[in-house]
């Protein structure tokens, strides 16, 4: 097995994803199959290969940065318009820090 039930639960927590018991069982099976296929990559010696970080060309990390000039952006009203809960221009979420 490439992945265990325990690891699936751990990764689900990292991904902030609640899975049902059925989903966990299915996930162990599916991920195991996919990770087994992925093992194929180990057939290749890539010790002398550069990772492909840019799709098209090599450029300076700053090549596409723009000048830091203030520009119009979404209004506060538009930004929170799709929130489930909002108030006074903010998103509302459950209590984060308990006293």
């Amino acid at each position, binding site marked *: 097995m490439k*992945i265990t039930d325990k*690891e*699936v639960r751990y*990764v*689900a*927590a*990292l*991904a*902030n*994803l*609640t*899975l*049902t018991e059925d*989903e966990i069982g*299915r*996930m162990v099976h*599916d*991920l195991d*199959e*996919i*990770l087994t*296929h*992925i*093992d*194929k*990559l*180990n*057939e*290749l010696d*890539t010790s002398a*290969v*550069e*990772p*492909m*970080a840019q*799709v*098209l060309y090599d450029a300076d990390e700053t090549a*596409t*940065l*723009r000048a830091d000039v203030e520009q119009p952006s*979404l209004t506060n009203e*538009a*930004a*929170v*318009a*799709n*929130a*489930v*809960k909002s108030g006074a221009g903010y*998103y509302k*979420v*459950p*209590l*984060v820090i308990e006293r």
Partner: protein
Amino acid sequence: MSIELGKLTIGGVREGLKSRAFSAEELASEALRSAGEQNATTNAYLTFCPELALEAARRVDQAIAAGENPGPLAGVPIAVKDVIVTEGLRTTCGSRLLEHYIPPYSATAIHRLEGAGGVIIGKTNCDEFAMGSSNENSAFGPVHNPVAPDRVPGGSSGGSAAAVASGTVVAALGSDTGGSVRQPASFCGVVGVTPTYGRVSRYGLVAYASSLDHIAPFARNVKDAALLLEAIAGRDPRDSTSADAPVPDYAAALDGKVKGKRIGLPREYFQSLASETGDLIMTAVDVLKRLGCEPVEISLPATDYAIATYYIIATAEASSNLARFDGVRYTTRSEKAESLISMYRNTRGEGFGAECKRRIMLGTYVLSAGYYDAYYLKAQKVRHLIAQDFAKAFETVDAIVTPVSPFPAFKIGEKVDDPLAMYLSDIYTITGSLAGIPCMSVPAGVTADGLPVGMQILTRHFDESGMFRLAHAYEQAA
């Protein structure tokens, strides 16, 4: 007035408006009527926008009446995949999580379509967050292939492909990350084009895998696909990966001059393809030969590693991109949200479908502590090898021709229980995606059962013109 919408081209719309055979408003009304009627069979559309469409059409009619240039896509009815945001118009990404999401802005490609006079009539169904190869992963039900309604239209842009194939619009926008435009184009018998990475701005395309995502056009012929791409392509300061390269006149490249072009046939793609699909592609290659092209066998040795590479890179990027759907900003929150963490986890657990969960999990796993080098870094290196294979091949050939999919459209439900088999069927489209090169599907006949099969044409970075020239010459000769 009678409008044969299913046969109209962009040029036909221009002629019709010019000769007053119909107005843009009449054309938009007919598209809306036809799309509404066919939707009962195809489920291709999730949202219609009659008011916006008729308003856009009236603007075109007014411009024409005033003697102004109404734009290269004036009055052309267009459908847009529901992963591309449209200001004020619901954009669901095929997900329950965004069922009620009304974007506060439009994608750059949408602004360009509208600026060119295009008339958007609705948003099309797709696999949830563009993840899938059959359009069966939509929270709003599968799309049915207009050619054979018990079969899938392909995915993830199945709704856009079906909308064009069923003649409800002249063209459509989809998105392609690993084949999501080319494969449905192949299954539905239309043209689908994935341009060079960065050719079209991704601003406003809801991100799945950012280093692979493209906004990409569908049309019923090569020329219309070229015209649509030209209208949306070009540098956009809002997408730092959009290419700062001039956009050529693609239609001007459709001159039939393909004599002497060297066409690479990758042996790795054909050796395991003993099927009707393979026969149809070889018949298409014979047509190219008659046109004076010279087929050459080539090798792309890293092909066998492409699926593994793609499903590491794409899922890693997806796990990060989809983190934003957390119950705070985007319209849906679980009832079980007692704490911040339970709000995140239950919203996502209840909201995402099975395929999204699988990809988020795989992506999170390959990026988790201790696994980065073994998976993500390794995949980035193999991606380099795959890109180098193509670069080397293009030293000796002008274009590469392959099948789009190992098989034609399959039955709805036939492959849903085997995710790995579904992933493996993306083999012919994924390699070009990883290399970031232009690739397209052009119809190459039908099987004995009448199911369409697409031929894929791939060219060098930014050589969309060469790709269109070959596809168009083939289309005219076939």
